[in-house]
């Protein structure tokens, strides 16, 4: 495993080749590069080998996610989407659907997952997208917004109402009735291909439905988002590692008042804060991933905790990194400038800070009440 991980990390470093800043400025990652990485299966590295995936543990996949996140949060966001799409198929799909879709997601096709709508952000119970059966076919109507990676995607996994409950559907992005429009100038993860997806009378064969009758929308969404959250959490570790590396090299080489910046105590404190942030986020992610790998029920709360700790630490740490780098990092495209914008989005995506706090409070009260 360790060799395989080191090879994968070196390969993706070579693939990115220091171009993350250019992608940030252009708002695009070259699509052939995404497909090349996708064809190695490493955009969704926890997919089991029987479906053509690398079959990595959550911990190994997480370390790889952090590595990609340290290079380019836009690329890491595309990974998160691909992994969440694969996970949704794995959890909600039948064995036949897993065999049909997972090998496509590990061989170069790209996927995105649609939750949010104009009137349903944090409150996903307000989802208005509908999936209905009509003459042996499925018909999907709805409007999804901020669908990460949708600009690049071949397959869109979309959550909607179905009968008395909810379901997800797999929609080819080129199906009639599907329109994908890129979000103009997103503030962070600018090259992640965020788009709105408009679905008007999209007709699909019945076997594109993941799940079945009467499923619980909150349970489906919670299941899918669990993967997104652990992936974002590791991505935040990556943001912090990218910042720490830039800051560490800057403070020993840059001299002011006759000595390296690192010798100034107020700067040294910033370095310490950044290190604490990176270590804290790493420990929270390691714990959550171990829970995933052991299949313990603690994974659910630990994942929300890791996401929240990661996002808050990354946002604070990136701001600190910009402060230390000052004019050397204050230009769009620079690793700490990207980190500052990207990390702020991590406090919003996959459950805002406030939603995470509500869940953590509820979790704490449910486990402690009456004890």
């Amino acid at each position, binding site marked *: 495993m360790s060799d395989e991980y080191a090879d994968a990390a070196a390969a993706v470093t070579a693939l990115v080749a220091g171009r993350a800043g250019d992608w940030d400025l252009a708002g695009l990652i070259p699509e052939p590069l995404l497909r090349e990485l996708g064809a190695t299966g490493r955009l969704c590295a926890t997919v089991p080998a029987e479906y053509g995936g690398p079959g990595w543990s959550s911990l190994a996949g997480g370390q790889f996610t952090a590595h990609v996140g340290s290079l380019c949060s836009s690329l890491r966001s595309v990974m998160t989407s691909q992994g969440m799409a694969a996970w949704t198929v794995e*959890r909600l*799909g039948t*064995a036949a659907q897993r065999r049909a879709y997972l090998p496509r997601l590990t061989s170069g096709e790209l996927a995105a997952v649609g939750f949010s709508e104009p009137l349903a952000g944090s409150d996903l119970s307000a989802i208005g997208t509908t999936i209905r059966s009509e003459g042996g076919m499925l018909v999907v109507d709805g409007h999804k917004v901020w669908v990460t990676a949708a600009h690049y995607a071949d397959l869109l996994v979309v959550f909607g109402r179905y009968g008395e409950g909810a379901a997800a559907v797999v929609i080819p992005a080129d199906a009639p009735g599907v329109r994908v429009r890129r979000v103009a100038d997103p503030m962070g993860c600018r090259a992640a291909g965020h788009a709105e997806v408009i679905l008007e009378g999209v007709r699909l064969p019945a076997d594109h439905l993941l799940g079945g009758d009467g499923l619980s929308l909150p349970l489906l969404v919670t299941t899918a988002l669990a993967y997104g959250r652990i992936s974002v959490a590791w991505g935040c570790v990556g943001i912090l590692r990218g910042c720490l590396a830039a800051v560490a090299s800057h403070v020993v080489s840059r001299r002011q008042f006759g000595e390296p910046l690192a010798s100034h105590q107020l700067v040294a404190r910033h370095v310490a804060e950044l290190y604490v942030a990176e270590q804290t986020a790493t420990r929270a992610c390691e714990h959550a991933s171990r829970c995933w790998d052991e299949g313990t029920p603690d994974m*659910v709360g630990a994942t929300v905790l890791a996401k929240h700790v990661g996002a808050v630490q990354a946002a604070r740490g990136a701001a600190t990194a910009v402060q230390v780098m000052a004019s050397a990092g204050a230009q769009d495209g620079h690793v700490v400038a990207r980190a500052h914008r990207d990390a702020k989005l991590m406090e919003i995506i996959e459950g805002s800070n406030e939603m995470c706090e509500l869940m953590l409070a509820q979790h704490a009260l449910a486990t402690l009440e009456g004890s």
Partner: protein
Amino acid sequence: MTVSPQSTIQQELVDFLHSRTKKVWEEDTDLFASGGLSSLFAMEIVVHLEKTYDVSVRGKDLRLDNFRTVTSMATLVRRLQGAGDAGE
């Protein structure tokens, strides 16, 4: 696969719920009725059932009705133990 007795599963689930929530739940109490448990906790239960009973709770079984009471969860587990892969 061996199918566990309903009463054994139910007792274990009552113990599990007590250990996680510090409350005593009757076998037919609706766990998710008002003032009950969250969808986050529903997912914890799914993971617990998978780990403890070596079953896989997938797609069409993710109905809240299956997790509403201790009795309904035990029934689900027994069905999955008898039926093999729930995803088929």
